[in-house]
């Protein structure tokens, strides 16, 4: 479904992502682990078209993404739930979700179904649908950001550090929902996390990114016992 071949992205003269190759198949649930500054966000922004790769090829369902602007990539069914959430703070929760469905704005029935689905995943979004997004707490904003990304009904969802800055209980709740999105809804999910423990508990397999390079890859159940991963990310 998603295939990267030797992708390099230069940000401010510095290659933040170097020579990354990876492949994710339909229906998979994959983790991208790495510490702060490893290049996870740059890699995701490159895939989503916010940044342009300086080298390499990105393909989604056989279509090359390299030169497509971000808004066209969403239309192909690849949605990024970005770091920092990037919500519309002065719009209501409901309008944020509706903007999430912008690419299918004429499919009123489909939007209604997606909306109900998102409300079911995050009941708080329904309760507070008229509240301004900017007045939400961090956890609620993260839920809204995931909900907004789902409103485009993506075939593949990229989640950039959804657990960052959240309380452990909220992280648990969000992890459950992400698992649900993958297993119940059948969406292909690529999850970037510093919280390796959480990510490896729910995903099928993972990649480890260090200094912009993939240094390790394998099934999550193996990575969780890997000495390097343990030392670097699990605090053991």
């Amino acid at each position, binding site marked *: 479904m998603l295939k990267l071949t030797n992708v390099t992205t230069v940000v401010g003269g510095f290659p933040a992502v170097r020579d990354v190759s990876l492949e994710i198949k339909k229906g998979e649930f994959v983790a991208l682990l790495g510490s702060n500054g490893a290049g996870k966000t740059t890699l995701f922004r490159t895939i989503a*078209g916010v940044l342009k790769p300086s080298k390499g090829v990105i393909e989604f369902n056989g279509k090359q993404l390299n030169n497509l602007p971000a808004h066209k990539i969403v239309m192909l069914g690849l949605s990024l739930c970005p770091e920092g959430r990037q919500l519309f703070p002065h719009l209501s929760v409901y309008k944020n979700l509706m903007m999430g469905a912008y690419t299918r704005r004429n499919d009123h029935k489909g939007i209604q179904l997606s909306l109900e689905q998102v409300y079911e995943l995050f009941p708080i979004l329904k309760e507070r649908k008229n509240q301004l997004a900017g007045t939400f707490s961090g956890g609620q904003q993260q839920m809204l950001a995931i909900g907004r990304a789902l409103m485009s009904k993506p075939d593949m969802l990229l989640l950039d550090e959804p657990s960052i800055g959240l309380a452990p209980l909220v992280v648990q709740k969000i992890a459950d929902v992400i698992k649900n999105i993958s297993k119940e809804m059948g969406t292909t999910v690529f999850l970037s996390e510093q919280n390796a423990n959480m990510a490896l508990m729910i995903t099928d397999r993972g990649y480890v990114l260090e200094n912009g390079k993939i240094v390790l890859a394998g099934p999550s159940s193996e990575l969780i016992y890997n000495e390097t991963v343990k030392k670097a990310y699990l605090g053991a």
Partner: protein
Amino acid sequence: MDLFLQQILNGIMLGSTYAVVALGLTLVFGILHIPNFAHGHLYMLGGYVTFFFITLLGFGFWTAMISSMIILALIGILVERVVYRPLRDQPHINSFISAIGALMFLETFVVVAWGPQGQRIPNPYPNPVEIGGIILTQQRLLVIIAAIVLIVLLQLFLKKTTPGTTIEAVAQNREGAMLVGINVNRVSSMTFAISTATAAAAASLVAPIFMISPSMGALLGMKAFVIVILGGLGSVPGAIFGGYILGLIEALGGGYISADYKDVFAFGALILILAIRPTGLFGREEVG
């Protein structure tokens, strides 16, 4: 008392046009995050295009005004494309310089085409009407009504339609807008088109009352900045209220103290309000 009411009505009329012009400026500010310095000059051009349609092509007032709005919408799109978009990722100072180039071009163009002297559009509705003892021409009443209709329509567009919401979305979070599939370039073009078309409408409405001249853009552009800063940069209600406040200050100051000093009152009010509230009347603290 009559003088007071008369000046209030004058103030509301002035304020209505200011509010429309400032609304366009504030919308574009939301998208570009810099003020469009050429806005006043596009307003001026809008007045001249209406003048052109009426005097040279013999259009009626309303047909001329709507044609002028369409032409200015297209020019607005062109200005965004040529003056602002190529410099989007450059330091803001580059856009300022580029905008100053654009406004000098516009003013010179009008001087070459129509001469430096003022021109008058024949007043389509010169008959006086009386409201509660106050006499004003139909045209003045029309300015107020038409401006309010424009403001209400624009508000409905922004709040109730999907394309309108995309303008707000891009203003509030550009990257978020891109990631939900909004074509940010198209929204920029649309915002510019709306902004310049409404400026053309405002210029056309008051042109039969005041003269049009190539230099009127500079002063009005400056006042629109005052209003937008007064109301809070990027704030839509701020632009509307700021417009009316400035109109009333000018009319009352001009009527009671001295008409020669009306601009002094306007800019004095700006300094005063910003000293008390640096974020403007409706400026909001950063949220989220």
